[in-house]
């Protein structure tokens, strides 16, 4: 019994977990293997998870040539960074107001912000598309970004971050005559950096991965983002059976976030625990 408890069960547990982990990772393992597999390997064994003996970059070259990945990368970067830049301003100001100022209706407004966590933008694509058209932003990148300029999640995160900071510094600054914006910019934000970074990670990931809304707003190829390009690519590969190229294209879309994640794992994990409210 003692031996069983001490050695056998843990060994079975480790084996079982390893099997599940392998299963979980297999789609990615396949992507890696298939994207470096030469075309000549034939499509019968395309699903094999065993790496080919003669890896090739041919699939990446084909992927980069057949889709306009350069354009997609640039557009995605513009959307992701544009959204983040505006959000940093809006959520810092609103977070400060909710954390530190007192004004009538504050709690009510707080709940009004909460609404965005439930009525998430994808649920409102139909009326929002009309609004974007009315604003003359149809088929533009600002049209893709606009619904995300206000972020309830970011506002909460900054409110929590500001609340956790000691008040001594801003009180001293206020007594010295610093105006509110100087208190936010010079005193609070430097101390709130971890909160901002957590928010930035979640925001960038969310918008890098977004698909449905840009699909609605964008019509011309020159304005497409990575996810839209990849979807078109996937549907194209269906007929062409170019699985290696498809795998390479998928890898190209996932790679930047994957690399960032592997480099900053701890930060990512912590940020996403916060992100629950974003759903």
């Amino acid at each position, binding site marked *: 019994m003692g031996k069983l408890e001490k050695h056998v069960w843990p060994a079975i547990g480790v084996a079982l977990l390893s099997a599940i*982990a392998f299963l979980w*990772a*297999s*789609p*990615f393992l*396949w992507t890696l293997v*298939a994207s470096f597999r030469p075309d000549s390997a034939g*499509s*019968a064994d*395309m*699903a*094999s998870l065993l790496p080919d003996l003669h890896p090739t970059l041919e699939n990446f070259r084909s992927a980069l040539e057949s889709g306009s990945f350069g354009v997609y990368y640039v557009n995605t970067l513009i959307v992701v960074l544009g959204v983040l830049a505006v959000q940093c301003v809006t959520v810092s*100001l609103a977070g400060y*107001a909710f954390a530190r*100022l007192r*004004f*009538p209706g*504050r709690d009510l*407004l707080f*709940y009004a*912000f*909460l*609404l*965005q966590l*439930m*009525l*998430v933008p*994808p*649920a*409102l*694509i*139909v*009326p929002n*598309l*009309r*609004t974007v058209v009315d604003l003359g932003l149809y088929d533009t990148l600002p049209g893709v970004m*606009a*619904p995300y300029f*206000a*972020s309830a999640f970011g506002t909460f995160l900054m409110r929590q971050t500001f*609340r956790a900071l000691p*008040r001594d510094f801003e009180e001293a600054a206020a*007594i010295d005559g610093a105006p509110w914006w100087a208190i936010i910019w010079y005193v609070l934000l430097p101390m709130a950096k971890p909160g901002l970074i957590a928010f930035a990670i979640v925001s960038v990931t969310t918008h*890098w*991965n977004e*698909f*449905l809304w840009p699909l*609605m707003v964008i019509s011309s190829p020159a304005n497409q983002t990575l*996810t839209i390009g*990849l*979807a078109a690519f996937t549907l194209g590969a*269906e007929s062409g059976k170019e699985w290696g190229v498809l795998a390479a294209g998928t890898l190209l*879309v996932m790679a930047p*976030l994957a690399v960032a994640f592997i480099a900053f794992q701890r930060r*990512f*994990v912590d940020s*996403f*625990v916060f992100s629950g*409210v974003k*759903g």
Partner: protein
Amino acid sequence: MSVASTSSVDLALGERRAGRPRRLHLLGFALLAPSLLFLALFTYLPVVRVAIESLYDTPHGTGAAAAFVGLGNYAKVLSDPAFRQAALNNLVYAVGVLAPTLVLALGFALAVQRSSRFSTVLRTVFFFPSLVPLVAAASLFFFIFLPGVGLLDYYLGKLGIRGPNWLGDSDIALWSVIGLTVWKNAGYYMLFYIAGLQNVPRDAVEAAMIDGANAWQRLRFVILPALAPTTAFVTVIALIQLLTSVDHVIVLTRGGPSNATNLLLYYIFQSAHENFDYGKAAAATLISVAILLAISFGSLRVMERGARGDG
């Protein structure tokens, strides 16, 4: 405590900047204004707009004026077999994803909670799918589900099993989509359980051990009750997510075969983007907004606790 110290800063600021608290009220509103502008444009007004427009029939491309049809669009939507199917599918999809996801998320969290190199690798492997675009996951599963030569059939074939047509069989397709979603989401919810497990009182677990409770009893009677807030929180955010993301459906099945994988948001997308039936899309949007609000208001407290980061 926080109220008391708020007022001291308010006073310091107020006396210097304005002399009266009213100016400070204005500052509060001014700082919220940029956010409120965009929330009004893309969250509040759209609900009003879609509510009004759902009462009109807006012909596409003819330039004809919208005609008031009252609740006609709702009648049209509710009697549309595709909508009923989408609503039913969404219910099956939500329950079908949620149950295994919660079990796996908790199981993963229990497995990786101790810090070791093995745990770190497992955590990365389980979490990784939630980091990739749903569209990329769909592209991968497009190949995995491919009849005959796909990853799944290839290895099932080696075991001597002939798989069904994963995406082409209308009895199977929704479950294939559910499988993808479970794979994609379980690791994300695992993170909340890892955080939740850190708040389970140690002495309660130890006391149960001393009383002779086995691992299952400790889980069932000590750990699970302590994790109830985490489970409630994860359930709410998962339900919202399962009602509002259909990227994989768009890429993999387009709602087919014969509406077997049609979900509410896909129905809305299709009505607006492909059939250009705006009135119908508006009515369906308002119905899904009502469902989202019903889920959320039932759980405001849960959401707020999560927003504080201790959920």
